[in-house]
């Protein structure tokens, strides 16, 4: 069996499936050599991707020279744009571009000065440059694939894998177009020099110049040039292939020359093959040996409405209007002007759009050349489209699904492998614009995929955010714990300890003196919810008191305040804030041994508040009233200033009339005492917590009761209060479900709002115990007063 190279050398050809034989009509334009048209006055050079990948190097009003770079880019695939002639940049604005949609693109409008003065050109020979320098030169010359797709050529000349075969595409299978045909006839040696550069860069085993058999002159010219060229013999070969549309398609040409198929979704380089257009080879030669950037190309101007059809060198940026005017274009009614050939070209809506690097043909057909469009008729499933399809698709099944907008099903019939060659539409007896349906379906699938991708990204982002918040929360908690531990450690050795101890001792003495009859532990269950509320409040207040009795520091005040505001569960907030404030104080105040005992107080407080919340408004109000009454009495008798200071902010929020009355009284008192107060920071601490409170009655009850309780607690010994609550802080942590608010760093108490029924039960029991104790205290206090 022959190897592929031997077969290539013998010119063995393979069959490409499908295809059609439309009338060629190339003689209309290929009879004369490539000519030049008079220089146009105005050029429109699109500068796409400026702002994204590139920056403009010129400003409005600036003089530019022919070949001067207008943009400078950074990306590897970015191709710079050059001035097609010398002149002045008169505008840099959005201008309709040469595209089926005519969407405006940022463009440089250059007014020619008529001098056509070149900028400095630096010719080189291959020996002078390294491969990278050659690639850079090709890139800086702005060379894109000249066959129509305009893919940056230097990318294809710098493949990741080994290239065995380079195919130079001179097939030009579209009817009418003859720009490559004429280029090969008129500039065969230059093309061969360009092929030499490609050979130097890729070093392939073979270079095949493929030409259709309807261009015998071009094949002959290239054959002669191959004979003359300096490349090693046997490397370059001209292969003539049968005329059939779309043999010039990259995939089809590879199949014809090598018998291989480019795997779906891959590029030919995967097979070790690269395909370049003859025009590209010419441009590469110009860039290296002349130093000229790609600023002009051969364009076939043809069709029966054009007076002098033929091939012309047109500067890129020439408007199509100027180009057609120069060759006596006479538009008829309902005239079509097609960019590209009749099979794959697109019709333009307006002619003030520029010639681009990939514009190989302008076609202005008359009516009898191209029949006016007819209405689409029913598909009779004749299957001619499937016979014509070079990609071996089932076009009529694709059409069926595309029309029904079942795009996923169309995708299942390999819609993405459609090369939009138009063979199916060409043979369709029902005049169905099949390709148009596929384009719509492809776009729809693209949009769908994009939306899916975005949705997935959003999901990932959302999950990442959740994770981040979780991490932050954990970090904060850890930090807070660390800080607390540090504080405790530092407190041991400070004088404040001594002060606190001394104050505690004083308070204890006072309490002992005041309530000699009190026994701290009387287990008694409070059945009445009213009482429970009162007692809960009292209990909390006691805890606070205990804290107040000690030296208070304001380090964490703001922390507590802001943390509270964001908490959603209001009741939980109340409980948490109050409890924390208290707990902190208690913690700070107590000696190391009593610190842990203070924590359970938090829990108790939080739980009792929960209980209170469950109670009817009425009951709550009653409790509040009772509590207030007591508070008043005790306030009068109170000698500690800071107690009132605390009561003040709490009562500010009270709406209930009674509560307000009580509050007013309390405030009045509080003010007095505030004057004498020496621990201002206590107020600050409590305030933010209470601001967040919503349940007014509960607040009233709580605030007032706290005030009362504090006093009583003051009277009692601080140590008693804290000592009563035994469970360790760890228990509290275990109970928390840990999910309420991410910013509640100290939210152990807050979290108790989310307790499970079981945990609620435990909490209630704890609350009951606390209440009982509170009652006991209340009794004592009353006795005391009496």
């Amino acid at each position, binding site marked *: 069996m022959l190897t592929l190279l031997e077969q290539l050398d013998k010119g063995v050809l393979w069959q490409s499936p499908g295809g059609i034989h439309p009338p060629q009509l190339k003689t209309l334009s290929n009879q004369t050599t490539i000519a030049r048209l008079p220089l146009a006055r105005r050029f429109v050079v699109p500068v796409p991707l400026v702002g994204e990948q590139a920056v403009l190097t010129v400003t409005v009003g600036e003089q530019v020279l022919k070949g001067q770079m207008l943009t400078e880019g950074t990306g590897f695939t970015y191709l710079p744009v050059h001035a097609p002639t010398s002149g002045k940049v008169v505008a840099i604005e959005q201008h309709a571009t040469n595209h089926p949609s005519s969407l405006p693109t940022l463009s440089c409008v250059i007014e020619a000065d008529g001098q056509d003065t070149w900028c400095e050109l630096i010719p080189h020979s291959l020996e002078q440059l390294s491969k990278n320098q050659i690639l850079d030169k090709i890139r800086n010359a702005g060379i894109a694939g000249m066959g129509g797709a305009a893919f940056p050529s230097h990318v294809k000349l710098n493949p990741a894998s080994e290239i065995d075969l380079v195919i130079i595409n001179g097939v030009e299978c579209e009817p009418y177009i003859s720009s490559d045909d004429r280029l090969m006839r008129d500039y065969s040696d230059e093309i061969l020099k360009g092929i030499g550069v490609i050979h130097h860069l890729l070093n392939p085993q073979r270079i095949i110049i493929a030409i259709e058999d309807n261009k015998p002159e071009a094949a002959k010219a290239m054959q002669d040039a191959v004979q003359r060229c300096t490349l090693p013999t046997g490397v370059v070969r001209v292969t003539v292939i049968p005329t059939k549309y779309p043999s010039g398609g990259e995939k089809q040409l590879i199949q014809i020359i090598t018998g291989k198929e480019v795997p*779906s979704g891959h590029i030919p380089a995967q097979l070790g093959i690269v395909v370049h257009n003859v025009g590209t080879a010419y441009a590469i030669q110009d860039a290296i040996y002349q130093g000229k950037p790609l600023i002009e190309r051969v364009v076939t101007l043809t069709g029966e409405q054009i007076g002098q059809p033929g091939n012309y060198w047109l500067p890129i940026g020439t408007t199509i209007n100027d180009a057609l005017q120069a060759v006596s274009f006479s538009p008829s009614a309902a005239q079509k002007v097609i960019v590209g050939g009749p099979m794959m070209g697109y*019709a333009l809506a307006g002619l003030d759009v520029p010639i681009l690097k990939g514009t190989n043909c302008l076609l202005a057909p008359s009516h009898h050349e191209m029949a006016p469009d007819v209405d689409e008729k029913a598909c009779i499933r004749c299957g001619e489209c499937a016979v014509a399809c070079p990609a071996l698709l089932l076009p009529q099944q694709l059409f069926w699904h595309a029309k029904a907008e079942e795009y996923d099903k169309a995708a299942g019939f390999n819609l993405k492998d459609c090369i939009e060659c138009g063979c199916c539409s060409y043979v369709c007896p029902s005049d169905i614009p099949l390709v148009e349906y596929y384009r719509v379906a492809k776009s729809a699938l693209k949009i769908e995929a994009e939306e899916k991708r975005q949705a997935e990204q959003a999901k990932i982002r959302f999950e990442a955010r959740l994770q981040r918040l979780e991490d932050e929360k954990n970090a904060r908690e850890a930090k807070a714990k660390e800080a607390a531990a540090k504080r405790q450690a530092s407190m041991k050795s400070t004088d404040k300890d001594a002060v606190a101890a001394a104050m505690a001792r004083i308070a204890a003495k006072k309490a002992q003196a005041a309530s000699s009859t009190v026994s701290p532990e009387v287990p008694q269950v409070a059945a009445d919810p009213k009482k429970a509320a009162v007692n809960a409040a009292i209990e909390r207040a006691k805890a606070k008191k205990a804290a107040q009795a000690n030296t208070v520091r304001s380090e964490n005040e703001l922390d507590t305040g802001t943390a509270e505001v964001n908490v959603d569960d209001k009741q939980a907030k109340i409980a948490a804030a109050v409890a924390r404030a208290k707990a902190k104080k208690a913690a700070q105040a107590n000696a190391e041994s009593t610190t842990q005992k203070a924590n359970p107080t938090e829990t108790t407080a939080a739980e009792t508040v929960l209980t209170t919340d469950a109670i009817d408004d009425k009951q709550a109000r009653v409790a509040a009233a009772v509590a207030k009454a007591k508070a008043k009495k005790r306030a009068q008798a109170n000698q500690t200033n800071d107690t009132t200071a605390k009561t003040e902010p709490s009562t500010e929020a009270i709406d209930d009339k009674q509560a307000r009355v009580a509050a007013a009284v309390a405030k009045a008192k509080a003010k007095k005492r505030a004057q004498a107060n020496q621990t201002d920071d206590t107020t600050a601490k409590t305030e933010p917590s209470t601001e967040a409170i919503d349940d007014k009655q509960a607040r009233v009850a709580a605030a007032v009761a706290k005030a009362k309780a504090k006093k009583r607690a003051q009277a009692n010994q601080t140590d008693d209060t804290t000592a009563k609550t035994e469970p360790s802080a760890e228990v509290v942590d275990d109970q928390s479900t840990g999910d309420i608010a991410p910013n509640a760093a100290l939210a152990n108490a807050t979290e108790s709002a989310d307790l499970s029924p079981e945990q609620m039960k435990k909490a209630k029991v704890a609350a009951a115990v606390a209440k009982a104790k509170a009652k006991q205290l209340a009794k004592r206090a009353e006795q005391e007063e009496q």
Partner: protein
Amino acid sequence: MAFKIASSPHVSTSLHTNTVMKRVALCLIPGIAVQSYYFGFGTLVQILLAVSVAYLAEAAVMKLRNKNIKATLSDNSALVTACLLAVAIPPLAPWWLIVIGTLFAIVIVKQLYGGLGNNVFNPAMAAYVLLLISFPVQMTSWVAPQTIAMNHASLLTSVQTIFEINQSFAAEYFRLGIDGIAMATPLDTLKTDLSMGLTTTESLAKPIFSGMAAEGWFWVNLAYLIGGLVMLKLKVIRWHISVAIIASLFLCASFSFLVSPDTFVSPLMHLFSGGTMLAAFFIATDPVTAATSPKGRLIFGAIIGVLIYLIRTFGGYPDAVAFAVLLANMCAPFIDYYVRPRSYGHRTGN
């Protein structure tokens, strides 16, 4: 000025649906001519009747559907359907038979499914089966070939008989027998004979047969074959379905004939009697109701060929084309679903 924009490609072939349909109808002419020669002018009258009814029916439906009547009628698909049904039914069948059949074919089988391109079943064959089941006597009484008939119907008599004006001829017509004007089709005769214990050779000795094939029918089939070849040449149809039908029928018949020549019909007899060639080139190749891919069409044709053989040999009806085509129509969507060509770049292991 504003320029006209359109999606590519901007050129197309001149072969349009109406041309394709017209060519199908034109290629029927040799067959119709030979059929008329052997079985009288009845066929022509039936065609005229069927075509008129088909166009009227289609126009009425288009009016009801608020569609362009002219555009639809000019696609010539109704013409082809009407012609196919008309040549398939007995030439002297009463007028209401073809009217019912055509109405059913156009209105129900074609238009109620969404018109051209959307019908699941071949309209002509669906109508044929409807008539065969509903009016078996009228549908199985063929005119005797002119060459052996005692009394041949003239154009006038044919019209009179079809429109039931002159009942005398009709009475005679339905008197089956060798000396009558009407008789069972050769395949029917053969089937009956074989079931009565006669050998193929004995049965073939009857005057209705000439040589290896049936009198007249051989030439009719040959004419349709020629018309079919012209269609192939004009690329109106592709070869896959026709070749598959003929090949599979021939293979099945040859096999059984080689095993037992006395009890089975010869392959040649199968190919050149009844509606074999009409089916192979004109009926089964209706693209709307056939499979679309080349491979799928081979399968589709093979199914029809095998079914024709099976129904003719073991079934209750003498000819089987209509049933075979309808059954294969049902299979077409499945064939299309499972038989897909390998697209470019999807080669396994590449």
